[in-house]
């Protein structure tokens, strides 16, 4: 209660400034508290570390939920493969703790300094991606990992997401709002993202990450540009393009000469026809979802976790559906919505454009990744390997995600602090 009061006291004005439309009980209470406590608590707030507790709370809930669900889904495969049912849990726990430490550090690292780190970071990322060619290790038929030791590895694509966020935000800030409206100004921020995307696609054969990186840059541009028309046009073109490609693949399906992506489209359209090979994962995930019912079979009761390939990874959401049912699945989706809403508040309240754009990048990253993951699991789009943020197993992903959260917290912390100082100045003198 104390924490809440404190939080409310500080972030209250910020929340208002950010424009909360959700008149939750909490914010109302926060408002009341603010009125009551402003005078007394304001000086105290200044000394304490300033955090967006509600953001932190949602992240922690997602993380702990993720650990529980990860244990539930991975215990069988871990016991079979490693002889230790907690194998994945232990590793993920270590990643989580390390990630949280990193998050805390990033949260106190002045975010504006990222601007100067963005170009070196980008270059390092590119170097790492290139290093995959000679040094990468193949896992599950894809060469995407850099192994430092047998146990410590890195997926450069995860790092690319962070570096693209800080770099694109920097470029947009440099170009300025007015010049963004020109065609040149619109294209330049997309260039670094485009380069990385092509590299990820060609070198690591990882189209989903490439698309995600393009989406992040695109989302940031969308928020920064004062124009809707070109985005509507681009979206329409994108949709038309997708439909065209799908129709082309279906038409030429008989010739049987397309790569695995073309095959995935065919599987997407009719998973039953490929039930024994390429459609197996999709179909088994659908079986898991379908068998869950309203409230699921209960935590740990999944039968499909033995059958669904990569159940602890890309397909974890299907096991959530099976164990926790529609109720649990939608609850998790609501958690993500709440998280994104918190981000929106932080972005809207940011002191400067750079901070707001970083948050926007994180918003796009997380929301697109969640949507893609759930869409894949429900066979709404063709199968592509995207993990579910905070919940799927994976060190690199978790590590950089928590770094991103740290950045968001830093933006939030900076703005709240400035707001508090301002109010202090006003009330005090």
């Amino acid at each position, binding site marked *: 209660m104390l924490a809440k009061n404190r939080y409310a006291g500080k972030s209250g004005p910020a929340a208002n400034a950010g*424009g909360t439309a959700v008149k939750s009980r909490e914010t109302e209470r926060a408002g009341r508290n603010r009125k009551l406590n402003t005078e007394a608590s304001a000086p105290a707030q200044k000394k304490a570390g300033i955090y967006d507790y509600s953001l932190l709370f949602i992240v922690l809930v997602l993380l702990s939920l993720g650990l529980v669900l990860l244990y539930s889904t991975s215990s069988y495969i871990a016991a079979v493969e490693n002889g230790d049912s907690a194998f994945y849990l232990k590793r993920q726990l270590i990643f989580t703790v390390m990630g949280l430490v990193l998050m805390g550090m990033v949260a106190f690292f002045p975010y504006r300094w990222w601007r100067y780190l963005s170009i070196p970071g980008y270059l390092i990322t590119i170097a790492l991606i290139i290093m995959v060619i000679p040094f990468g290790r193949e896992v599950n038929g894809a060469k995407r990992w850099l192994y430092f030791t047998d146990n410590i590895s890195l997926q450069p694509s995860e790092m690319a997401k962070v570096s693209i966020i800080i770099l694109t935000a920097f470029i947009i800030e440099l170009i300025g709002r007015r010049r963004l409206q020109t065609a040149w100004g619109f294209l330049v921020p997309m260039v670094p993202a485009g380069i990385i995307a092509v590299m990820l696609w060609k070198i690591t054969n990882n189209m989903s990450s490439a698309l995600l990186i393009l989406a992040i840059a695109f989302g940031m541009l969308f*928020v920064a540009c004062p124009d809707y028309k070109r985005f509507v046009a681009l979206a329409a073109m994108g949709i038309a393009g997708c439909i065209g490609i799908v129709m082309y693949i279906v038409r030429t399906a008989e010739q049987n000469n397309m790569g695995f992506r073309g095959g995935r489209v065919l599987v997407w359209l009719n998973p039953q026809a490929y039930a024994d090979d390429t459609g197996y994962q999709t179909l088994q995930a659908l079986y898991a979802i379908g068998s869950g019912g309203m409230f699921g079979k209960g935590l740990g009761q999944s039968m499909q976790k033995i059958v669904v390939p990569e159940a602890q990874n890309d397909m974890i959401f299907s096991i959530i*559906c099976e164990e926790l049912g529609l109720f649990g699945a939608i609850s998790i989706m609501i958690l993500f*919505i709440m998280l994104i809403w918190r981000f929106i508040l932080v972005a809207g309240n940011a002191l400067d454009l750079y901070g707001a754009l970083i948050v926007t990048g994180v918003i796009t990253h997380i929301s697109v990744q969640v*949507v893609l993951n759930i869409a894949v699991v*429900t066979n709404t789009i063709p199968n592509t390997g995207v993990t579910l943020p905070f919940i799927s197993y994976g060190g690199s992903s978790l590590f950089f995600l928590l770094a991103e959260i740290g950045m968001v917290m830093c933006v939030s912390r900076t703005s709240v602090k400035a707001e508090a100082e301002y109010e202090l100045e006003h009330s005090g003198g």
Partner: protein
Amino acid sequence: MSRRDRERRGRAGAPGQGKVRRGPRRFTISMQKRLVVLFLIVAAAFLVLAFRLILIQRDNGRSYTMQVLSQQAYDNKSLPYKRGKITDSKGTVLADSQLVYNVIIDASQMLEEEEYLEPSLNAVTRLGIDKEEIRAYVTEHPGSQYYIAKKNLPFQDKRAFEKENQEGAQAEREAQQKAVEKARRQGKPDSEAEKVELVYSNIRGIWFEDNYIRNYPCGTLAADVIGFTVGNNRGSFGLEEFYDETLNGVPGRTYGYLDASLNMEQTTIEPTDGNNLVLTLDANIQSICEKYLKEFNEELKDHKHKGNGSNNAACIVMDVNTGGILAMASEPGFDLNDPYDIKKVAGMPKLNDEDAITTNYLTEAEAEALSDKDRSRYLNALWNNFCISSHFEPGSTAKPFTTAAGLESGKLKTTDTFLCTGYLDVDGTAMKCAHLEGDGMLDVAGAIERSCNVSLMQEAFKIGPEVFCKYQNAFNFGLKTNIDLAGEARTDDYLYAAEDMKNVDLASNSFGQNFEATMIQMAAGYCSLINGGYYYQPHIVERITSASGSTVQTNSPRILKKTISEETSDLIREYCILAVEGDHATGKLARPAGYRIGGKTGTAETHPRKLNQWVVSFLGFAPAEDPQICIYVVLDRINNKKQDEAGRACIVARKIMTELLPYMNIYMTEPLTDEERLELEELGLYDTNERN
């Protein structure tokens, strides 16, 4: 997100603008609006996905749930049980199941490391499996974990293979150890030690799976009685079929399931081996019978026509006082270890479309050329146990039964006499006696001694059809004896009912024509005639023991009925002894050296009569004073111009008994002639039975 909210937010942000130090570029309200648009897009996407989830549940929930449940079969493997043994009364194993192994290839293990493949493939060759075949399979199915590369590998081969592997691996380990020690002495680190080439240590992915195959150590011995198994555990014919359930055990099972905390639990239910059969049959007696039947068959083989020495030559030896079968043999036989050998049907009479025999005989070339359907017809005929499945008109061996019926019912007195003039006119039909010149005046004993049809017909008329049929029924003619063997025939269709019986039928029935019986019916009935009237259930299994050897069930001798009185039995015995020993006896040839026996010959014409084909037989007992065994020899249509020679059956019976009686520790009671002494010496039986 109402307009008013947004305005208020704008206002709230406004006061700070001037005073608080902001970044170089402010995040404008229009950008904030676009952020909200972004949020709405994401929220819409979430909504669509939530809707999609609900749709999947609604439309496919049921079928998908069923699908999930249907996929829940984990690692379920049946473990074979051992089918029970069949042993004779002395413990000789007639059928048992041998442990053999199936060689299982686990491709994924073989391919786990590169250096595993070659040693493993080379090891496979040692098991007599083609290396390249396995290589091809392993390359094509790298994920396969279960492939039966070879079936029925004998235990010795498996043991030799495992021993070699073990010793080889041990040697390699020691060599490696030595190399390491050597390196240490030279002060080099372990990793620089000389590498020993690992061959045996790198064998992977070869497993053995238990399996059983049925084995018949005695091959052809008692083949018809024992029967064989199809697919190792389904009995076919004989004991294997009749006692199929007893012999079969319960297969075990290993299965994995997931317990509450989702650990894979492996559970094994051990198989229960089948029960064993211990027979009353004695392999020695059986082989004596088979030896002489074979000898007879060889003697007359291709004699008149190409083919076996007779259509069937069969012999039953029964324990008179228990009903236990001591031997049951028939020719032609077959090898239980290779029952499908088509060569064995050569020499058998050809079958017509209704599976009835013809007078043509199958040559070996014809046998080889049989179509699949015909093959199974002939093989079935071969596999049939003649002693219980075939029926025929018994002929004169039925005369003691007729006499017994008359004496027991009181219709006949021992003092009754009958005149034989060579034939008897029955309702206008002249029914001939075997001796056309006529036997003259005969009493009841003489009628049996000389096997006089005319006297027996007159006896039958005295008895009358009602009593006659009643006694036929009492002697169990026409009914199954319920001997514990598969395929026993029922012959009630070939018997007359009293109300349908005309005089001609009664007359012919009296000397064993015009009704049909199986050998086992005749032998079981005859036992009761001579043992004091006790009809024992004929049986071949003495007891059933469990796999561990304890007795599960004992088939003690079971008296089903009393057919005749002791007194009548004594008389019949006396008459039958007379039929072997008497001056005019027909069964003289059946008496073995040194023993007194009783018995009755039989010479029966088969249907259709015009073919002039005969079944000759001898049905007797030994020894005369204290009958212990009943022997019934039947020669069905011998391969000779003249088929109606009952003497041939007597000779076979005599030969069998000559060996059998000493074997059964029955002492000789009669003096031996020089000739007989020589004969016994030749057989090697004289010394053991020397008497002063």
